Structures are given as C-alpha cells and as structure tokens.
C-alpha cells in the first residue's frame, strides 16, 4: 500500500468513466441487479462497448470500475464500499488482489466515486454501505473482477510471446512464460490488455489456494490515521471556502418564525446569514466567528405541532398501537398451543429506547453550488443517493453533481440518511462560494435520526421438558422506511427489519410466529448499528434466558437442547461457554450471562461476566466471544469488529436512551449521552471458528450480542430481570439480592 487518497479527487471524467465501468459491470454481473426502488435508474446497457482506455484519461488498463493499471505499473484498486472504520477498504482490496495476483503492498486503494451503474451492490440494491452486507455482496463479484483482469493481462502477454495463455503463470503482478522463463509486468502489458476481449466467464480459486484471503492483513488506511493526514469530510479545505455554524429548530417539526440578525451581522468575521424553513446558517471566515455570530442571533421558533411531545406520550402510543399485526414468520399453530398451555404459558414485555448514533465526527458537509454544477465533499454511506437528492434541490441534472466521498469518522448507520446533505444543499445554493457546514455535538445528537423505540410482547408455552414448544413474539415500532424512502411505505407491508432476528431463530421451536405492529410517529428514524437484530435478539435472548430459569435449567444447556439442527450455532455456543469457564464458581455478586444469535450470515455466542455492587453499579469483568463467520476474509478485522461491536452495544445498554420533553430531545452531549470509556473495558477473548463456508457480515454482529448477554449476566448476579434498556441501576441497587 502506497497512498490512501481522498475519494474521487483523482476520479476519471464522469462521462468517460461510465462507459468502461458499465462494461466492467457486465463482467461481474451487476447489470442484472435491480436498482434501489426509491432512486430508480436503469443501467445504461447501450453504453456497453469495446474498451477504449484513451477516453478515460487514465493511461493504462481500466477493465472495470475496480481496477486501474497504468503503463508505468501503478495498480489502483477501487473499492466499492465506504470505509467508516470497519476495515472494508482492506477486505475488498484483498478480494480483488487475490484473483488479480498482486500483493496488498503493491497497490493503491481508492474508495469508489458516486456511480450507481458501477457500484450498486446486490444485497442493498444501491451504491450503499450498511447492514453488514459488503463482504457478502462483493465476495464473488470482486474476485471475478480480479480474475477477469488477470485473464486479459495474461492474454496480452501470451499474444506478445505468441504462446498459449495456458503456458503462462502469474504472481505479484509479473507474468511468466513457464517454458522459456520470459517475464512481463502488468504495467508492460497494460496497453495491450485493453484490446483483449472481456472474458464471459472466469473461474475462481478454491479457498485452499487463497494467498491473501483468510490471512491477517494490515489495514490499508492505518498510516494516515496515526499521523493526522487522513482526510475526513470535516477536514475539507477548498479555495474560497467559508464555514457555517447553524441553528436548528429545537422542536420536532417546528419552523423559523422571526429572526433579528442585526447584532450578528455587525460582528467582525461574519460573512452571511442564510435561512431555510427550519434552520439558520451564520457563515463566517472560520467556524469560530460563525459560532460567535450565531450566539448573537435573536431567534423565534414556531414550535410546530409536536410542542407537547414527551417520552411518556410516545411510549403510550407505542404500547397501545393496535394496527393489524403483520406476520414476519409463521410455523405451526402457536396460538392454539399457547392458549392450551395453562400454567406452562410464560409471557413478558420488553421496551427499548430511541438511540442516537453519536459518531465522533460531527455531521458536516461542504458544498459548492455553481450555475453549471456542484461539488460536495462529505462522508456518506450512500454517495449516489446523496448526489441525486442534492441535484433535485439545486435543480441540476445528477451528473452535474460530483460527490467527493471521504473516510467517515464513524457511521453506525447515521450516514445512510441524507437529511444533512439536503440541508447543506438548501444553504449552499444561496451562495456562490464553497460552504462548509458543521453541526455541533449537541445538534448531532438532538437532530439525529434515531434508532426506533420498541415495545415487544412475547409469549411461550413450555413442554414437559421445560423447552419452548410454541412462541409468539410481537414487536411494535415505527419503520425506518417511512422516513427514508421517497414513497410512503405501504400500510400492511412487512418491513423485514422490524422482525429481523425474531422471525428466524437459531433454535428449533415447533410452533412460532413473529409479527409486527406498525406505529409510525413524529420522531424521524434511521438504521443503527445492528439494525433490527440488535433489538429483537435482546428480546429473544433475554426471554429465552427467562424460560431457562423458569424451567430450572442452565441457560447454556437449555440453548444446547434447542440446537439439534444448527451445528454452527451449537459449536460457537460450546466454544464460548468452555472458554469463559461457564459453570465455574465466581465471587459473590459476580455472574456470567450468555447470548447466541445467527445474524448477517454469521453465528455468534458471547459470554459476559459481570459484578454488580450493592449500589447497582456494574463492573464488566470479562467478555468471551466465539464467532463463525464462514471464511474470515481478514481475521485481523474480524477480531476488531467483534471487540468494537460488543463494546458499542454494551455502551448503549449501559447508558443510552434518547428521551423527549416538550418536543425536544433532552440529551445533548457526551456528559448526558455517556459512552463507555477505556477504564470500563474488560479483558476480551475472541475465538474465530475455522470455516470454508461463504463469508458472513461482521460489522454489527458483536453489537447484537452485547445487551442480552449483559442483561442475562446481571440477572444471574442479582435476580433482577431487566426488560428495558438502558439498564436502571436504581432497580439493581434496591432490589439486587445482598451478597
């Protein structure tokens, strides 16, 4: 790895690039992917033509959107997913390099520019990064892209030597004619490779021949992130740029009523004061003068229709939601079995809070709107959607809007939403200069689009062995889709996210229904790390733990008894239990709790060991994880994602809930929206099961595991069952059994 570019700064001219990217898209089968519903644009099949690198402005071989090899030997791999810490730039580069037969030390890695034709991925059906989908979606296409390019490069060398390609081998970007020992580098045949036919089919290496995949690799973005040179969106500096601090209506749905800006205008360094319906931007020579100018504004807001909204009213409307339930899944006749279960019928209710993402890089966008086009410097999980929504607001064709995507200083789902880019476009189109908008931490939290709150009721009937023979899980929530999609989510249609982690359990339960009661409200929603699974697995794994205790059985043994058809989950359960010392004695007020789930194509078991003192304070003593994610593309990243993901989930379970009073979010910054810190972090053991299965997702797996394992451990330590998050220490302190 040589350099790590800010994205798109050296991108190819858009019109030229499209042609070749689309040709590449055919090679890897993207052209048959259905585009994202809300932003539909058909692939331009007419543009698929012969390769003609001269028109790309790149002097070399550009077989598709992912690979560029220059005549002087530079090898650039363009990774389609957005890097926000999860290590995907490295993982995807490994996939391409594996089949291209180059080392990671020989390549430059760039993040893809906005281009739905080239970079739409098959699971999200958009150029988007989220839902732990990247590795699953790109594991085959990126290796195919590497193999196709390698085939063409070898073909060019063979043609020059007038030999059969079958007589040639390749390693580390050097092609060798075995019989004569002649060699050519990729750079030397880059021009000639342009004339090779794009192969219709390529075969991929079996896992046993992998040189890169499955072996720990150094991240490609590390060096820049330890010396301060890595560029995030907020670090954008462009000629003539001004910086804005903004005020946003504090109540949901409120509007600007009146503004006295005289004092602010008189402040030295204040350049402009801009208004949109629900926000004001004070533009300064730098952020600080803008912020000082902002503080001098006299603003009157029309609080709007939700001025009396409180968390209590939101919770009540969720509890009383009575829309017709929509089935997520149905096996057998759980209603009848539970109805007839009598004393063996168990029920519980769970509540989960709204959550903010609170990524450390506050929301920011830099935008330069001109009559003929627009540049946007930002970190987004959805570059193509960002481009389209900005173009619509500004009134430009989408191809006149260039999204220069950046490394993201923590995504966790927040940068799937484009509300912040839309706001920037509305301000930016009022001025002719490049405008950088930075939200404060308080705005980042209070004007987030939140993880939905949930109210779940769950019931089971136990058989004579104490195991669940019927199970009904009803979740009540809004749908993120209502706030994300362009068209309203149809009433009566299932949002799969609402029942993800509830509809398919790792366990064999003969009669099961998961269902969803939709209750949209005024709070704007968004996906949050772990998505539907984070919520549902907390309910499922907590309730299963309740059942085990009611049945008088050990929680691990109880789960084991339900895993007859699920050897991969059984294996991680057994590994985590054994490695954590499950069942071995612990000091007073200390205990272990387990969680198990299959999410994003990965199986994971977590044992949390905690101590709860008599005041209800919780100390994390140890975390033990066993994970089967199929082929671990970069085992180093697997460990990092599991550790980080578990701690991210623990942080929320321990501390976080967004609450409302008077239509306003009550939390504001890290003093009242607390996050886990290094002194709270327990020792970690993570075990990755060897596997040749196809790779599963990882970015969210640990987060899903966290809360239920923690709550189950707290129950084991105190006898207090936590059916709501975040954890209420008062409840533990008052009711916790004394040691």
């Amino acid at each position: 790895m040589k350099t790590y570019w800010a994205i798109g700064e050296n991108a190819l001219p858009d019109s030229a690039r499209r042609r070749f990217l689309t040709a590449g898209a055919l090679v890897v089968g993207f052209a048959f992917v259905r585009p994202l519903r809300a932003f539909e644009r058909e692939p331009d099949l007419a543009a698929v033509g012969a390769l003609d690198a001269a028109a790309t402005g790149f002097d070399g071989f550009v077989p598709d959107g992912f690979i560029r090899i220059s005549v002087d030997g530079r090898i650039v791999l363009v990774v389609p997913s957005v890097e926000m810490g999860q290590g995907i730039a490295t993982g995807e580069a490994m996939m391409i390099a594996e089949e291209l037969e180059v080392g990671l030390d020989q390549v430059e890695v760039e993040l893809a520019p906005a281009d739905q034709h080239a970079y739409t991925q098959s699971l999200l059906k958009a150029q988007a990064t989220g839902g732990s989908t990247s590795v699953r979606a790109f594991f085959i296409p990126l290796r195919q892209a590497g193999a196709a390019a390698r085939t063409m490069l070898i073909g060019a060398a063979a043609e020059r030597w007038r030999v059969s390609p079958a007589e040639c081998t390749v390693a580390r970007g050097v092609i060798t004619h075995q019989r004569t020992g002649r060699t050519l580098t990729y750079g030397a045949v880059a021009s000639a490779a342009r004339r090779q036919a794009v192969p219709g089919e390529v075969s991929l290496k079996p896992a046993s021949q992998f040189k890169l995949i499955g072996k720990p690799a150094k991240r490609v973005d590390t060096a820049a992130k330890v010396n301060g040179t890595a560029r995030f969106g907020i670090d954008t500096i462009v000629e003539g740029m001004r910086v804005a601090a903004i005020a946003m209506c504090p109540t949901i749905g409120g509007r600007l009523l009146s503004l006295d800006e005289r004092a602010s205008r008189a402040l030295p360094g204040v350049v402009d004061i801009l208004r949109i319906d629900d926000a004001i931007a004070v533009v300064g020579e730098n952020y600080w003068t803008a912020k000082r100018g902002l503080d001098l504004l006299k603003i009157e807001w029309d609080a709007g229709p939700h001025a009396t909204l409180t968390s209590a009213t939101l919770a009540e409307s969720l509890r009383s939601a009575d829309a017709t339930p929509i089935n997520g899944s149905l096996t057998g006749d759980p209603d009848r079995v539970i109805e007839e279960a009598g004393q063996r019928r168990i029920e519980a209710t769970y509540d989960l809070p709204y959550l903010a993402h609170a990524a450390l890089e506050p929301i920011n966008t830099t935008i330069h709107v001109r009559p003929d086009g627009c540049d946007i410097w930002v970190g987004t999980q959805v570059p193509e959607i960002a481009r389209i929504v900005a173009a619509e607001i500004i009134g430009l064709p989408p191809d006149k809007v260039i999204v220069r995507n950046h490394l993201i200083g923590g995504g966790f789902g927040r940068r799937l939403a484009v509300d912040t880019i839309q706001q920037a476009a509305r301000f930016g189109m009022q001025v002719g200069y490049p405008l950088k908008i930075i939200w404060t931490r308080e705005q980042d939290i209070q004007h987030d689009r939140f993880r939905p709150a949930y109210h779940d009721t769950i019931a089971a009937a136990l058989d004579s062995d104490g195991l669940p023979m019927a199970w009904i899980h009803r979740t009540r929530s809004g749908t993120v889709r209502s706030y994300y999609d362009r068209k309203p989510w149809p009433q009566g249609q299932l949002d799969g996210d609402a029942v993800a982690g509830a509809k398919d359990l790792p366990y064999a339960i003969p009669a099961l229904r998961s269902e969803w009661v939709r209750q949209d409200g005024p709070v704007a929603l968004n996906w949050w790390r772990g998505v539907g699974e984070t919520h549902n697995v907390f309910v499922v794994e907590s309730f299963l733990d309740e059942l085990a205790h009611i049945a008088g059985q050990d929680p691990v043994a109880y789960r084991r008894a339900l895993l007859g058809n699920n050897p991969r989950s059984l294996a991680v359960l057994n590994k985590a239990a054994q490695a954590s010392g499950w069942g071995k004695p612990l000091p007073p007020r200390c205990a272990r709790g387990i969680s198990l789930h299959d999410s994003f194509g990965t199986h994971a078991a977590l044992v949390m060991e905690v101590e709860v003192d008599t005041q209800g304070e919780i100390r994390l003593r140890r975390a033990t994880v066993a994970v089967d994610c199929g082929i671990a593309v970069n085992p180093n990243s697997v460990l990092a994602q599991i550790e980080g993901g578990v701690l991210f989930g623990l942080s929320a379970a321990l501390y976080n809930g967004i609450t409302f009073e008077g239509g306003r979010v009550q939390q504001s910054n890290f003093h009242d929206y607390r996050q886990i810190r290094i002194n709270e972090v327990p020792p970690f053991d993570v075990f990755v099961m060897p596997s040749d299965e196809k790779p599963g997702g990882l970015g969210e797996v640990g987060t899903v595991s966290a809360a239920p394992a923690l709550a189950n451990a707290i129950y084991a330590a105190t006898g207090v069952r936590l059916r709501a998050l975040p954890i209420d220490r008062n409840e533990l302190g008052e009711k916790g059994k004394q040691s």
Partner: protein
Amino acid sequence: MQSAKSSQPWPVTRLVINGKTVDVTVPADMPLLWVLRDVLALTGTKFGCGIGQCGACTVHLDGNPVRSCVLPISAIKGEITTIEAIGETTAGKRVQAAWLALEVVQCGYCQSGQIMSAAALIARNPHPRDQDIDAAMSGNLCRCCTYPRIRAAIKVA
C-alpha cells in the same frame, strides 16, 4: 481558507506550534482547536464535542495533554505540539509505531487525540500499569471502541 493575516479588528496572537512561531489575527477567545483547523490548516486535530468531554481535540501544551476545543488562545503560555509533529518526539514515535504494529485504528477519527494522550503518558511513564492507562486515557472516547488495542499498544510502546 482564511489566511493568517486578516483585515478584521482582532489582536495579533503569537503562538509556537510544532516548533514554529506563528502570528494569528483572530478573536482572542477563539479556541486553539479552530485556530489549528481553520486558520493554520492543521486538520489532524479533531472536533468532537466542544466541551472537553471526548478528547478528540487533544494537543500538547509544553508536553501536557490539553483539550484544544476549550482552550482560548489568549490563555496559552507555552509551546503547542499537534499530531502532525508528535512523531518527532521519542514518545510520539513509539506510540505511533505501536499503533501501527497492533492495528489499533478503525474509523480513526479519535486516534489523533488518543495518540496525543498516550504519547504524553509514555513520555512521563514509559511503563504504565493498567491503572495509569485508565487515568491517562479515560478522557478520550472512541466510538468504534478500539480500547482493547489502545491498551495493548500503550503497553508495547
């Protein structure tokens, strides 16, 4: 971007940053963070919370870690070192090397601040115990939760 010189009626403040003397003409109450980022284009130091709660803006003032987001430049008496130059110090170099060897970073946004806090710790205590690490590093949030590797890296630095 604004140049260090300005036509505005602000005082000239002389600062020593990464061994260089610079004069900036900005409001005297401007926090060092925004002077670094918006005036001097030293963007390695990050804005995270604005109230000294997250540590992303950590720089050294005469070798001690300080939160630049709440440090008005008028209050600065001493030499500033930022992430851009910390690799020129013995401790900073060791910390950066350890961060690379142990693959600490994920999103990376907090890591400038983490490295500055860790470098200050290592400079005064080359072999910190766990309690020393907790005390020195608990002011630095990492939302990716790279904490286990941060601890391990400090121990090998």
